[in-house]
């Protein structure tokens, strides 16, 4: 009996993990001029949309002391910046190409998305 219960709970756990982490919906925030992105266990907001050919300021504020998040890497824009704790670090972007650009922490564990339209 206990084996059946463990099996059922186990498979429910797997389904929950899949739903929780892999089926989450990204909420998109439209940016026209500048935006504060809080770095704490990920990036908030995680998905931003910005206009093409316009300079946008992304202000990263790291609140998470984890070493994983100490750098932010916007590989498509050739930017790798150290984020000191609780300090605003501004990155200016002027994208000339539309598309979806993923940025991440220094180890590629946490991701954010920039949609250029």
């Amino acid at each position, binding site marked *: 009996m206990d084996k059946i219960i463990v099996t059922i709970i186990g498979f429910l756990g797997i389904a929950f993990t899949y739903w929780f982490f892999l089926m989450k919906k990204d909420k998109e925030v439209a940016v026209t001029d500048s935006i504060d992105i809080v770095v704490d266990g990920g*990036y908030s907001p995680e998905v931003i949309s910005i206009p093409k050919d316009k300079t946008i300021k992304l202000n990263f504020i790291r609140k998470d002391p984890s070493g994983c998040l100490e750098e932010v890497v*916007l590989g498509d824009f050739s930017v790798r910046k150290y984020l000191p704790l609780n300090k605003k670090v501004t990155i200016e972007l002027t994208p000339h190409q539309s598309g979806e650009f993923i940025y991440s922490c220094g180890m590629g564990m946490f*991701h954010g998305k920039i949609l250029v339209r």
Partner: protein
Amino acid sequence: MEIKKTFSIKGMHCASCVNLLEDALGKVDGVLQANVNLATTKATVVYDSEKVTDKHLESAVSSVGYQAMVSEELKSEDEEKKEKQKELDDLRVRVGVSLFLGALILWGSFPGLIKTSPLVLQNFLVQLLLATPVQFWAGWSFYRATVSALRHQTANMDTLVVIGTTVAYGYSAFIAVFPNVVMGIGIEPMPYFDVATIIIGLILLGRYFEAKAKAGTSEAIKKLIGLQAKTARVIRDGKEIDLPISEVEIGDSIRVRPGEKIPVDGTIIEGESSIDESMVTGESIPTDKTKGDVVVGATMNKAGSFIFRATKVGQETMLAQIIKLVQEAQGSKAPIQRLADLVSSYFVPVVLMLAILTFVVWYVFGSNQALTYAILNMVAVLIIACPCAMGLATPTAIMVGTGKGAEHGILIKDAESLETAHKINTIIFDKTGTLTKGKPEVTDIVSFGSMSKDELLSLAGSIEKGSEHSLAEAIVKAAEEKELALSKAEGFKAIPGHGVEATVDGKRVVFGNKRLMDKEGIDMGGARNEIDTMEDGGKTVMMISMEGRLVGLIAVADIIKESAREGLVALQKLGIEVAMITGDNERTANAIGRSLGITRILAEVLPDQKEAEVRKIQAEGKVVAMVGDGINDAPALAPANVGIAMGSGTDVAIEAADITLINKDLKSVAVAIVLSKKTMRTIRLNLFWAFGYNIVLIPVAMGVLYPFFGILLNPIFASVAMATSSISVVANSLLLKRKKIV
């Protein structure tokens, strides 16, 4: 232009300082708004950048007794260093405490050691007491990161460590507090506090070493920043004053004494010296420089003393440009990284699912002690998975590779260029200014009459003085170098595509090519053989006739650079086909190509056709690099798979180039390719290790080998493997520093 700037102020301690500083900054002409914050000790100033410079802000602040830290770049470097050191110190304490307590618990619980341990350590409640601070104090950072990540519906390595160790700790705590309950359901009461504590200790230890090693990957940038001179001896109002480098302005005259560092970029206006530029440009031999020559900031003055005029300061100097370029390259993404990125974004959730599956399978199919095995194997799966190694595999190697390039005077624009360079199998060199010096020089003078060679050169120089042709420039320069007296030429006339004619000392002189001589009906007789031999050697031959009679020949040639031959041999050794492209006629082009051992020659190509030639070779399926000066060849550099520009002057940011050789050394083309090959080999090895490690060890931790060989992975060994895997990836990238590329 209106600019907003925030900078720190040193020496602030009370609210009255705020008013004082706001007043002082507000009075600066061009400052529109000044706010000073006592809590952050920072000033935010809005000003007109055309009227206000950093210097104005600094002096306004210092006039009221404080110090403005306007140069944020250095401050943030310093801040980063301090913050990292603090983190490392904190980590060291946590590692020490958790490993010490973990060792005590291990002593009191490990089957082989238990008999030697004091009884108190064998007590489960004492073990609980020892394990609790490790779990929640030393391991606090894991919990914090996990909670933050879960709020974003993401999971990372901390999530795995937290779940793994909490399960081991929770299960053990239950056994310690309620041993009878556990015994009642037929399970031997055996806590696993050692697993939880040692795992936390070892993973923290791994992070400590990883952080130390990672700092080594960005060493090149730190080295470059460290090259900067701190002060400059500026001559103002006839006095020599030592000023901080940030206060040097364009147009300042600066004295540099023997053995001193040149503070900024400029042009020598007085004196001469030998200058070692190896630290910035990678050029190994010191260069002699005199009045009118360009000097580069942060390079070392050897013997002489001189004064130069500053032409570039602050972020415009060559060193600042190099630092910016390397920083950008280190932040860029290599195409090979995309797979690792994709995998790592799914990795942790997949490992969590595998861990649950492991628990279920062991619980359902395990024989005796099923719960214990289910827990231990699940913990092993959670702990062994190492997503960090995958994330670090590519960027750490790119950082070391681009940094190593910069040390050798090879500036790589981005990671993609570094990656593509290893596939290059054909290189097209532009001839003029790239393989050759780009400035024709007089190579031969032949006299057919009574005139001496110097007299011939003087005569040619006299009539060419008025001409603007590049060949004329070479002849006049040669005459001037020999300090020959030039006569006045009268009735000067340029005959386009042929040459010139004029009257010198009452005699009619015609100077030009064969066509001009034929036109003038001048008999070239026995000179023809000599002319042919020189032309076959790639030289341009001009004939001088006086009063209708051939009196001599002057040959001019564009000299091949010293590094060209060696550079091409190095490329051929790498199995790369070399081609040369030039606007010259086929005969001259062939002659130069022959002397350099180049067989594929694209001659008589007009500048606007070079791009098409590059595309033609690409259409043959070749991966093509184009090497040029970056200015005239920009259109041809752009379509090449890798555009390589030879640096000139103090401009390093050549837009069309993927790689810029600031050491102007043609041997560096091969060095750049070798660097790319070695970096790619390191990345592949890193990725192989990072992927292979997870692909092999996760199933082992799940227990797939158990049915066949009885092999299971102890969670403590899993944590050792995990901690070493990311360190080994970073260490492998650091090994690239020691690899020989020259």
